[in-house]
Structure formats: C-alpha cells, structure tokens
C-alpha cells in the first residue's frame, strides 16, 4: 500500500467515523456539516478531471454546479405546486424523486459542459480561464433575471426529495446517500485515470503534439473529459440544493467556481482524493474560523498561499510525497 493510499483510506475512515459519532451523540448539525463537505468534495472531484487530469483550468464550474441545483429546484418546485412543467404537446410533470432529479442534473450539466467546452477548449491558458468564467457569469445573470424560478431570491423547496426506501430528511440517511455517491464516483474516476482514455488525456496535458502525432485528437479527449467533469459537478449541485432545500443564483456565481477550485488546489491537483481532503478542510476551517471571525477567508487565503508556494501537491502531496499520482 502506497502512502497515498493510506492517506486516502484514512480520509475515508474519517468520513465514516465522524458522522457515525455525530449520529450516536445526537449532533444532527455535525452530520449536516459532513454532508456538505462530502457534496462539495464531489463537485471538486468533477473539476479535478478537467483540471488535474486534463490540465484545463476552468473558472466556470459553478455553471454546472448551478445547473444541477436548478435541475433539482425546477423539478421539485413544480412537484410541490402540482403544476406541470409542460402540458403540451406532451405532459412533463415535476418530480421529487431523487434518482430522476440526479439523472436530469447529470444530463443537463453534461449538455452545458459539451456546449461550453466545444467553444472554450479551442483556447488555452488565460483565455480558457476567462472564457469559462464568462460562460459561468452568463448563466449567473440569466438565473438572476429569471423570475419564474425565484430570480435573485432563489427557490425554496419545502420538503427534501425522496429516495426509494429511505427517509431523506433523517440527516444520517441523507449523508449515506451523498457518501455512497461520492465513493462510486471516486471509483469511476480512479478507473478513468488508468484507462486508455485517461492515459491519453494525461499525456495531452503534458505534450499535446505527441498525442496528435500518435493519431489521437487532443481536442476530442479534452471535450469528453470536460463533459464528464461537468456532469459530476452537476450531480453535486443537485445534491447540494437538496441538502439546503434551496437553490439560488449564488450557486452559479464565480465565487462558487473559485471555491470548487480551492478544494482541488488545497487537497492536491490530480490526486484522486485531493478534492475530498480539500473540501473537508475547507468546511472545517469555515466552521472553526468562521466562529471566530467573519473574515475567516483571510486565513484561508494565507493557507492557500502557503500551499501554492511550498506544497504544489497540496495536502495530499505533503502527506504522501510528491511523485505518486492517482493511487
């Protein structure tokens, strides 16, 4: 077992033990905090496929996070108002079934990522960052000016959506759902990184011309990776909206994109568990420092500075050594 695997296993153990302790100690708020960390970690795992594996520095992933959130908000609000989304030519009703909401979120954010990626991936470097940011902002302002779904005020959903056989309003059960999804996505991501596609994508990040010269289109590789990345972040968005029973344009804001990127950088770019460690640390800091000062982001900024300057591999890099990749 490599050191990185040990760090990953420890992280998983914490994510199992901590909520169980909170459950036993009857601390529902702590479970909700852990749920938030797990869902944000999922959003980061999505971004890490584009950023870590593909080398695409997207500052627009809030778009997919928000689309996932609104997929939940739109479907659930129609369901709670008994008001179909579309009556003709065929009937589309709202739903409060989580699996259907997740699927919708994944498809909608995947399509958005495909469209945004198809244009953005033609650029590189700072231009790529700016163009993804621009797309994110477009969606943000669209949501603000869309009165049907709450506009600036956002949309409240009264009851958490349903999952067959579970009581999703029970914090520990909802945590179990989010944690299971995170684990499943981590397994898929690990496999993706080791697959022929992952090998080629990773090579395209390092030497584009070489990948072209062996007859593989780097553009195609990146577009697929960007789409998968957007789908995962979109799924996280649907879960996040369900956790809060609320969705608003804030989910689409560029600050959200920045936070998702912070999870990845904090934990370790291109490390399988990087975003998980990053998101957990972020939530921990927010909880601990946020209690001391409203300006806790200053300390976060300082930490980020130290990481970027002295530990390019993020927290995982510090704990597990530099060279191991995707354990």
């Amino acid at each position, binding site marked *: 077992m490599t050191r990185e695997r040990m760090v990953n296993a420890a992280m998983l153990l914490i994510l199992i033990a901590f909520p169980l302790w909170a459950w036993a100690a009857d601390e529902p708020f702590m479970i909700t905090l852990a749920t938030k960390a797990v869902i944000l970690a999922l959003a980061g795992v999505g971004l890490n496929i584009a950023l870590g594996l593909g080398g695409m520095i997207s500052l627009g992933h809030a778009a997919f996070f928000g689309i996932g959130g609104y997929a939940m908000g739109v479907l659930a609000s129609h369901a709670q108002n008994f008001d179909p989304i579309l009556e003709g030519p065929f009937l589309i009703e709202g739903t409060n079934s989580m699996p259907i909401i997740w699927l919708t979120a994944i498809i909608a954010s995947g399509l958005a990522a495909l469209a945004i990626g198809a244009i953005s991936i033609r650029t590189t470097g700072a231009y790529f960052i700016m163009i993804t940011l621009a797309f994110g902002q477009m969606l943000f302002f669209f949501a603000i000016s869309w009165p049907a779904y709450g506009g600036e005020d956002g949309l409240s959903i009264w009851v958490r959506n349903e999952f067959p056989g579970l009581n999703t309003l029970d914090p520990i059960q909802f945590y179990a759902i989010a944690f299971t999804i995170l684990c499943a996505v981590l397994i898929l991501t690990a496999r993706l990184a*080791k697959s*022929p*596609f*992952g*090998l080629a994508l990773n*090579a395209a990040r*390092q030497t584009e*011309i*070489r990948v072209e010269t062996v*007859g593989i289109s780097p553009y195609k590789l990146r577009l697929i990776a960007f789409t998968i990345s957007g789908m995962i972040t979109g799924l996280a968005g649907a879960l996040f909206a369900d956790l809060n029973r609320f969705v608003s344009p804030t989910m689409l804001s560029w600050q959200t994109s920045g936070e998702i990127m912070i999870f990845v950088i904090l934990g370790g770019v291109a490390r399988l568990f990087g975003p998980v460690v990053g998101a957990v640390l972020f939530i921990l800091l927010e909880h601990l420092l946020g209690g001391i000062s409203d300006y806790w982001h200053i300390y976060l900024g300082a930490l980020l500075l130290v990481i970027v300057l002295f530990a390019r591999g993020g927290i995982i890099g510090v704990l597990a050594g530099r060279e191991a990749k995707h354990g």
Partner: protein
Amino acid sequence: MADPILETHGISKAFGALHASKDISIDLVPGEIHALIGPNGAGKSTLIQQIAGALKPDAGRVILDGEDVTALNTVARAQRGLGRTFQISALAMEDTVLENAMLGAIGASGKPFHFFRRALDQAEARAVAEQALEQVGLTENMATRTFELSHGQRRQLEVAVALTLSPKAFIMDEPMAGLGFEGSKNLTGFLDTLRHTAPILLVEHDMDAVFALADRISVLVYGEVIATGSVEEVRNDPAVRTAYLGEEA
C-alpha cells in the same frame, strides 16, 4: 524505382517576405533513407511540419501512400501511417517509459476512447509497446519515469513511440541531436535496419550519420532544394560545395 510512399509536389510556404519553402518536390521510396540536409534556417523544419501536417503549405501537395493528405491535420496523417520523431523530445515526462510507448500503441489501435479498462491491461497494445521498447533497448527502463531518463534514452524512446505506430513512413527530425559518439553509433546501426520496416525521411546535422545511412540526400538552402542524389553525387555537386560545405568550387 518502386512507387514512393511519401511525396511532396511543389510545396511552397512563405512567412511574409520570407520564403521558407520554394517549390519543393521530394519523395521517399520503400526501403530507403532519404536525408534532408541544409544549413540552419534553410527551411528543414518548415518542410517537415508541412509534411507532418502541423503547417499548411501555401501551394503544392503532400501525398502519402498514393493519397493526397494536404488538407488533413496531424492527427489524420498519423492515423494514415506517418510516424514522426521530434528534435526536442515530445514525451509525457511524468509518465513511465512504458506508458509513453502505450500511448503510441493505443493511438495506433484507433481505440483511445475506452474509459473503464486499465490501459496497461490492453494485451495487444501492450505487446506492441513492449516490442518497440525492446527494439530500441529500453526494456529494462519500462517502469522508469521519463524525466529520469538520460538524454540519449529519451531519444531512443522517441523512436520507440514512432515504432509503435507501425508507420508506412518515418519522419525523423535530428534523432542524433545531443547524442554522444557511442549513442550516435548505436542509433545509426538501428536506423540502418529500420529502413527495411519503413522508409525514413531523415533530417540530421550529424554528417557522419548522414553519409553512413543515406541512400539519397536532398540539400535544402534558403527554402530551395539545390540538389538531390546519392551521397557521392551530392558530395561532388559544385553548388552544394559552395552553398553548404562552405568550400570554393
């Protein structure tokens, strides 16, 4: 002579007032090594890039195995059997030697879009990759990360990745660059046998290697081919002696 595998017909390329390629027609026939020589700035790299698909010529055509590939990009030309090595190694430095060779083999297999199988378990591609590494003598370094390789080993890996493509023609841009005496000698010996697998268009500054290997030499000066012929013919060509070898004719 057999039909050429690779031909250029009247390729021209200008960058503003600079004519980097002027009406260049060269070809590559099966079993040969065709060396392309010329002083710095003669337009060798520009020509190579137009043949490989990285640059579009202003005029002229590139024919690969009877097919006009002028309009195709690098990816499509690679898929049609053009194996290229670079003057400055273009390798995935963080990846292992085997992974770099696997990249070539996966590209050649035409199936890079598998998402859940392990790349290194792809038996066919792996066999191709391992064989290529064996051919260039890197079998013992398979698990080494590429940035840990010596300069000479990176040159060998460049060639191995091209080998995994089983190309119809090789284009090699200064494969000897930066190799010591021993390294050049070994690679020269290897390329000598490789020509029977597929012909090689060789851009090289190492004249010992060129004279030892080339069946034909084309001399490029200021974007123009001023001579093409056997080693003897080119050596004795007065225009070449003046322009390239720096001797009074």
